[in-house]
């Protein structure tokens, strides 16, 4: 139900983002969604004249995502936040806080869905 949604392979992401920038789009933000089966959606949101365009890239946990921070500087903090909270790595991040932008060392990818642990009665 997201408006103007494009589903892309991660290899095509940068090309599409460059085209959007050339077309005058503003970078709004990016959202990471843990799909619960080891895959993650990263949805990039862009705006032009109040019209949103969304790009969805689906990756598996170990995959690296090409950073778009050299195209849109504003993406640098969002990508660092996703790296902190979900443990997703970005390639060629303009400023890499190495997982310490928002959280401390004690926490490891706190927004990832953890498998439920069942505890039997009496244990």
């Amino acid at each position, binding site marked *: *139900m*997201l*408006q103007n949604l494009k589903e892309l392979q991660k290899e095509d992401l940068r090309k599409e983002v460059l085209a959007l920038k050339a077309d005058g789009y*503003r*970078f*709004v*933000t990016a*959202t*990471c*969604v*843990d799909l619960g089966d080891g895959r993650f959606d990263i*949805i990039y*949101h862009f705006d032009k004249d*109040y019209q*949103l365009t*969304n790009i969805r890239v689906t990756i598996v946990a170990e995959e690296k995502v090409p950073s778009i921070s050299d195209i*849109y*500087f*504003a993406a*640098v*903090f*969002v990508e660092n936040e996703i790296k*902190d909270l979900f443990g997703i790595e970005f390639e060629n991040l303009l*400023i890499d806080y190495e997982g*310490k*932008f*928002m*959280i*401390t060392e004690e926490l490891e990818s*706190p*927004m990832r869905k953890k498998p439920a642990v069942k505890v039997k009665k009496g244990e």
Partner: protein
Amino acid sequence: MGKRTIVPFGPQHPVLPEPLQLRLILEDEKVVEAIPAIGYVHRGLEKLAEEKDINQNIYVVERVCGICSFQQALAYCQGIEELMGIEVPDRARYLRVIWAELHRLHSHHLWLGLLADAFGFESLFMQCWRNRELVMDLMEATAGSRVIISTNIIGGVRRDIDADKQKFILDNLAKLEEELKKIEGSFLNDYTVKKRLVGVGVLSKQDAYELGCVGPMARASGISMDLRTLGYAAYGELDFEPVVENDGDCYARLKVRLRECYQAIDLIRQAISKMPEGEISTPVKGFPNGEVISRVEQPRGEDVYYIKANGTKNLERLRIRTPTFANIPALVKMLEGVDFADVPMLVLTIDPCISCTER
């Protein structure tokens, strides 16, 4: 090349009500680079929203920020309503505008006071916060509490504003407008105030757009962008134009917020005069399914909610992009090349809300 020094600005600093750190790399008295470090008060509210049900989440999102709690709840409720195909009664849409603009008024007055305090004008600071009390009284009278008013529900609002309270609002707004005119002169014409703000931290229109600026910060750089013009709640039926200034400096950002105070007063008056009689909420059955993006114009700018639901009482994902987060890249760029003494002014004129940023 002068001697390079690294100065940590914050996390505790007199100009910052909340903890944010900027590592400033200085060459003599000039800032060469600024590296933000956030995370001192991260609260994990997005994770909490996955645990709570869709109605409890209203209280969670209201606590993203006290200053704009109503707009946070509004963005969330509008997103869920869109997912469930709920039509909100007309009266509720107007009531939402009234409370949203009251929030804008108290947020802008709070900021005006903090700005006055930052450039050392203590009595002006007191005056701004005293005027803000008039707005707080209105919130208490109409909702029962002063900051987090919890009047939004999925499908409408939970309280009505009757004729007596409408009169009380109009009376207080008349007083506030009068007081605002008095302080406006000090902000706009005082020599010392101008000296601190005019030409400081200039952000060009192109930079503001490319760096993703939102709210008064973008509008002060000549970008006519205000999500209220999309017409959500009852804004589509009210007459207003985005407040735009073109200089892009600290003074322009002050002027935008001052003019927006008058605009908010006008919008509340219009909403009261046009508000129809009728129901204030519609019954809601079932749970949402699908994904949606809901956006509102908060006092600081565009607030973006991404909501993913799966047909149960819990959400799959709630992502909140608050305006301060969007304005940080521009702050970092603006700080490059400014005098060290101007850093507090610059940081303050983006109206940083760390509570929002570290939801």
